[in-house]
């Protein structure tokens, strides 16, 4: 008989170790999955985790790591604030889309004006867009007690329809020969979120992600609001006695995560993507949920987890073209990672021991 004893406090050692063990377990079971699909598991795992960093064409893939990792980290940092307090923003994908639409909208409205303030205005527009979209579930929750999980998620589908409408209608490139999609912001110098150092993949989104990590770290460890967030998540009753105002917390957590997701969308649309198109969103908002948990809802952990997740995206693409591994296999792989992580968390909160005696 196996017995679980609740630890008086979560084990710090296991808390650090579980992500690593989860990644190893996922590699093992992912390998089995790839083998079942008729691929050489060792080669597939090496292609995903090794080649983008140290392979023959690593010079091309390494910058991609920053490009893919930045939106993931940026969104996950925002989500982690809410998750810590038990406020579940699941609709980051929608906030990401609306941020991109608002930001790109500002840029497209000002076209062809060339001025230094165009890009900053777009950044503000992007953050504002995401913030507004996240404020809908926030205000509804505060005012009516509506479930923020369901509302934020429903708004993803609304945002996707809005994106389709915009790229086919209002924001369509007037010189695009009738093709769907907006003007390419990469060709509009004042609006282009170009690489800061050529060939490095380092654009403003990466800088913003790093700032967000530092900001979140300071907030959670050195600031009263951060303390309230942690307190609400760990001991809701104590938080009530300490005078935490839940409404303020909900508005802040959802607002901040929305604004960060909006920023991620803006940096993507004005940089790597370039155009507002129907298939602009690729699920960063959902993958960021995995990143947030894999990073233990800790800013530094999220930075590392974002890098790892970006690696599986890039490695997955390489495996897709080189080994013919289906794109969906990587999605399964990422889902598996979250499963193992959640399951192994048992070891953080409980002590597992074998009990031979019948006396309980």
């Amino acid at each position: 008989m196996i017995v679980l004893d609740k630890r008086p406090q979560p084990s710090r050692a296991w808390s650090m170790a579980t992500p690593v063990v989860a990644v190893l377990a996922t590699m093992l079971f992912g390998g089995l999955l790839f083998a079942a699909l008729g691929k050489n598991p060792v080669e597939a795992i090496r292609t995903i985790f090794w080649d983008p960093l140290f392979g023959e064409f690593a010079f091309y893939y390494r910058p991609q790591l920053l490009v893919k990792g930045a939106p993931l980290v940026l969104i996950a940092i925002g989500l982690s604030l809410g998750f810590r307090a038990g406020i579940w923003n699941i609709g980051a994908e929608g906030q990401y889309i609306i941020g991109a639409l608002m930001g790109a909208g500002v840029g497209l409205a000002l076209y062809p004006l060339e001025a230094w303030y165009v890009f900053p205005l777009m950044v503000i527009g992007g953050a504002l867009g995401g913030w507004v979209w996240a404020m809908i579930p926030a205000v509804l929750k505060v005012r009516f007690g509506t479930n923020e999980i369901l509302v934020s998620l429903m708004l993803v589908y609304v945002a996707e329809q809005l994106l389709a409408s915009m790229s086919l209608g209002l924001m369509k490139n007037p010189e695009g020969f009738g093709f769907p999609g907006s003007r390419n912001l990469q060709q509009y110098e004042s609006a282009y979120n170009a690489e800061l150092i050529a060939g490095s993949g380092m654009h403003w989104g990466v800088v913003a992600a790093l700032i967000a990590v530092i900001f979140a770290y300071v907030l959670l460890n050195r600031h009263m609001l951060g303390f309230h967030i942690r307190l609400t998540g760990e001991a809701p009753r104590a938080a009530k006695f300490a005078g935490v105002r839940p409404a303020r917390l909900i508005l802040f957590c959802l607002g901040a995560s929305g604004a960060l997701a909006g920023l991620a969308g803006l940096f993507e649309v004005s940089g790597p993507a370039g155009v507002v198109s129907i298939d602009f969103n690729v699920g960063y908002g959902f993958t960021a949920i995995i990143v947030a948990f894999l990073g233990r809802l800790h800013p530094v952990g999220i930075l590392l987890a974002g890098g790892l997740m970006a690696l599986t995206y890039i490695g997955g693409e390489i495996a897709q073209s080189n080994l013919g591994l289906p794109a969906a296999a990587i999605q399964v792989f990422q889902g598996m990672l979250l499963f193992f992580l959640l399951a192994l968390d048992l070891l953080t909160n409980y002590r597992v021991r074998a009990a031979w005696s019948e006396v309980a």
Partner: protein
Amino acid sequence: MDLSAINPVLLVASLMVAATPILLAGIGELVVEKSGVLNLGVEGMMITGAICGFAVTVETGSPALGFVAAAVGGALLSLLFAVLTQVALANQVASGLALTLFGLGLSALMGQGYVGIKPPSTPKLDIPVLSDLPVVGRILFGHDLVLYLGIALVAAVWATLKYTRAGLILRAVGENHDAAHALGYKVIRIRTLAILFGGACAGLGGAYISLVRVPQWTEGMTAGVGWIALALVVFASWKPWRVLLGAYLFGGVTVVQLNLQAAGVAIPVEYLAMSPYLVTILVLVILSADKSRAPASLGRSFHAAH
């Protein structure tokens, strides 16, 4: 714009078809939540059921086997959730999300060879005289068996919860798991069974989309229906018959907006397509004021200290 092209009889009949996936998934989730478990993985279980049912129907040519496979597939996936939340005591919200993300990936992987295939059609009930009745025949007696199964399930769940010992135990576990445990009921086992039932129902609902409603397989084809089903349970205040009412309401919105699209109303297609999601939010707002009906232990992990 030509609204006269919309046939009210066909509208009601297709409303019932559109409502059935939501109804099946919703009634399953209602049982799960009544046992005190919040499974946010409905979308993932539905899409897995959709591909399991589709694949088996195409391979065997039998929709009946397909629906069985869909229920089994959904239940198997929900077993993962049960292990995570009941054995490993993981956070239910996070585990449900993981289930959805995993299910979306898994279904896309399984469905690779099935894109663009037309499945064998599911036979419709054809009772000689009744099905030929004007208006009523088409609405009441002209559907496939799964649609009636959905309605029968609502009645069965209602009766079980209200009148049977099993229903009472399920509710006890959902209201206060410590008290139920003290009375000697196996909380973990009962919850696991409820989760499996929910998974099977969601799987059926998913297969209904891929085999009857659309019928075709495309990646991510459930498009949020699983989440609407979750909202439906809140809307229904955890009452079975209200799930039926709610499902028909959402089915109605879906069908009406599709008909308006076809009739060429001057509203852009995208804005019409948003309407089911917006209506869901609206309904949630109106009904969220009353939370008293929610099972008291909803979403809380149970760990027997001794």
